[in-house]
């Protein structure tokens, strides 16, 4: 009897270790994503579409610089630096976001890790080869059907994420991105930093000159899916809106849900309804002159549950 108890104990501790080891991988991946210079081409698959993009990420004395560029279809480009985001819209680069509120580093704080392990079972399920690199494959399996499963392939050398898939509850691929070519470190093009070309200058937008301000809006979500915790509540300017928008963010450690609340401007796109792109589901509803939008990389049922339980309570 005692033997059996000891054996069970051993099994449990092995299981716990496996989980802890997988979670340690996440920290390594997060660190590598921000601290490594790399340049590569990746394929993004979603909703029966395939897109190829190039990404360059370099770390300079003044922080991270990143350029994301589509290689097929219409020209799309995003440049990011220090929470500021520029996007190629209507043939020019426009600043679309500027967030100073987020402490960008270190990623994966201990409380985030503990939230994550409460909602997902993490398991190392083998090794594979992606873009010529050896990768550790880790599966994060949700404990309920309110979130997706995530499978990641991390480079065993640098810790960089080489491939990531989001899986639905029948193990079907919802979206997937995979590096097909990747250079880590070494001589990486930095000529685009500081935007030397005249057409490529990065102006600060008139509209989005400052980021969000933390607030207590008085809005709450009554039926927040289990495991999600509020990580942020801000009032922020948004492109093309006259009034600031309230944004509340909830996270379960691996995925997030954003709630946006703003006065309804009567735009025809504001009609109630559900739409999706890859793992992202978006749900709109206009109630009493307010436009509610819920966005998250979670199943449709989860965004619907959140929107339908938004309530105003006294501050």
């Amino acid at each position: 009897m005692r033997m059996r108890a000891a054996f069970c104990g051993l099994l449990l501790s092995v299981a716990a270790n496996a989980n802890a080891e997988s979670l340690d991988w996440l920290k390594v991946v997060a660190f590598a994503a921000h601290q490594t210079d790399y340049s590569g081409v990746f394929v993004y698959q979603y909703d029966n579409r395939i897109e190829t993009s190039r990404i360059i990420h370099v770390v300079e004395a003044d922080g991270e610089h990143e350029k994301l560029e589509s290689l097929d279809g219409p020209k799309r480009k995003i440049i990011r630096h220090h929470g500021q985001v520029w996007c190629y819209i209507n043939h020019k680069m426009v600043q679309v976001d500027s967030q100073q509120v987020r402490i960008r580093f270190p990623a994966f704080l201990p409380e985030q890790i503990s939230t994550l392990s409460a909602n997902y079972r993490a398991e190392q399920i083998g090794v594979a080869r992606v873009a010529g690199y050896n990768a550790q494959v880790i599966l994060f399996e949700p404990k309920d059907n309110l979130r997706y499963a995530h499978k990641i392939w991390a480079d065993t050398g640098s810790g960089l994420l080489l491939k990531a898939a989001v899986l639905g509850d029948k193990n079907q691929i919802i979206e997937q991105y995979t590096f097909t070519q990747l250079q880590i470190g070494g001589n990486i093009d930095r000529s685009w930093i500081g935007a030397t070309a005249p057409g490529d200058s990065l102006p600060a937008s008139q509209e989005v000159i400052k980021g969000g301000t933390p607030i207590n809006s008085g809005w709450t979500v009554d039926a927040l899916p289990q495991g999600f915790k509020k990580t942020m509540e801000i009032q922020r300017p948004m492109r093309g809106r006259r009034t600031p928008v309230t944004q509340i963010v909830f996270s379960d450690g691996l995925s997030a849900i954003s709630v946006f609340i703003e006065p309804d401007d009567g735009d025809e796109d504001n009609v109630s309804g559900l739409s999706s792109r890859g793992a992202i589901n978006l749900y709109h509803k206009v109630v009493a002159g307010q436009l509610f939008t819920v966005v998250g990389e979670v199943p449709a049922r989860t965004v619907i549950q959140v929107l339908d339980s938004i309530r105003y309570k006294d501050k």
Partner: protein
Amino acid sequence: MKKEISVLMDGELFEDEAEGLLNQIKRDSAAHKDWEIYHLIGDVLRQPEHIHCDLSAKVRERMQEEPVVLAPRGHAVKQKIRTVALSAAASLVAVGVVAWMSAQITPETFPQVAMQQAALHPASVQIKPRSSDYLMAHQEFSPSMDMSGGAAYIRTVAYGIDGK
């Protein structure tokens, strides 16, 4: 009749009574319809998310329209023997296919198919370009940023926020 069917479905009839009733259902099309409706109601009560409509009639209609070709045609007189052999072979294959299909149709597969259809439904409505701003605003605070860095932004620009 309806009451008897209900009692049968609850498993409260004796074996011989049940057999008699089942035979009656097979012959009487109205009773057969009731039998189907009762099962549909049961399914809806058990799994309200996954049952949309009664497909059986449509499936039957489509199957009747499907051509059933078991043997190659033509040269019937000249190659009579060969045709017979072939059709025998084809019948064997058909039997195999049917056997394989019935092996595949376990009680679990049906709800699975229904669920996949339900899951595919929302994907048919693509996020409108104007909503890309919400994706962009959401992305910065998503944990996916921690893992994949800027590559996660691909979701926000997937096929163009141009022109809006």
